[in-house]
């Protein structure tokens, strides 16, 4: 649990990760797919495809046992949990009131992958106490002249 962590200002998702997310979402459709993204310094390195224990087309729920396994795996790899994502097969890439209500884990970005529009749409959000702000998602690698903070969006 990361208490007091600043809201994430941006998140980088490499191609291979975005592809895994899309594949998982497409494979699980019309059910909602879900997963956890882990990495370091706002750069995603791993995508954990999670089981939707709710098995619903308009709901998702992770299994605590699987959550514990994944969190320990992330820790053992020296990474942090950066985002929780799920798909909206039939609605836009925006958190629903229920998504906002159940965004309980502090310090992570909430990502929604929509298949609704006929073209995949991935958006990320900080959700705190019911307040939703969009987080820019950047692709691929940081710019080479980075010292410790990222430069402007790619």
């Amino acid at each position: 649990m990361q208490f007091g962590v600043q809201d994430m200002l941006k998140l980088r998702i490499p191609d291979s990760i975005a592809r895994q997310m899309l594949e998982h979402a497409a494979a699980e459709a019309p059910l909602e797919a879900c997963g956890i993204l882990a990495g370091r310094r706002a750069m995603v390195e791993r995508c954990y495809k999670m089981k939707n224990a709710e098995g619903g087309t308009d709901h998702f729920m992770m299994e605590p046992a699987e959550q514990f396994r994944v969190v320990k795996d992330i820790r053992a790899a020296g990474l942090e949990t950066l985002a929780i994502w799920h798909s909206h097969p039939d609605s836009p890439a925006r958190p629903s009131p229920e998504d906002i209500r159940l965004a309980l884990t502090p310090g992570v970005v909430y990502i929604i992958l929509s298949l609704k529009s006929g073209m995949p749409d991935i958006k990320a959000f900080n959700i705190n106490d019911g307040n939703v702000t969009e987080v820019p998602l950047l692709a691929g690698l940081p710019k080479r002249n980075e010292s410790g903070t990222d430069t402007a969006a790619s």
Partner: protein
Amino acid sequence: MKVTINGKPDDIGEGLNVDGLLAEQEVKMPEMVSVELNGDILRRSQFHSAVIKEGDQIEFIYFMGGGSGLNAINRATD
């Protein structure tokens, strides 16, 4: 006494049950949290009875879920 919480060593008071530990960790919604004590996932009814001992390894994680609830709306308007 020394315990491990979410992989980090920590020092907590003696005699705390899980409810007390979650309160001490400032968990805002303990009813939405899953707890694993020494590798076993506790039932909610055990949060009161399970007492933390020296050297225990505790993991807790928030419920992760959501839902668009959209199909309910669609069905209502069809």
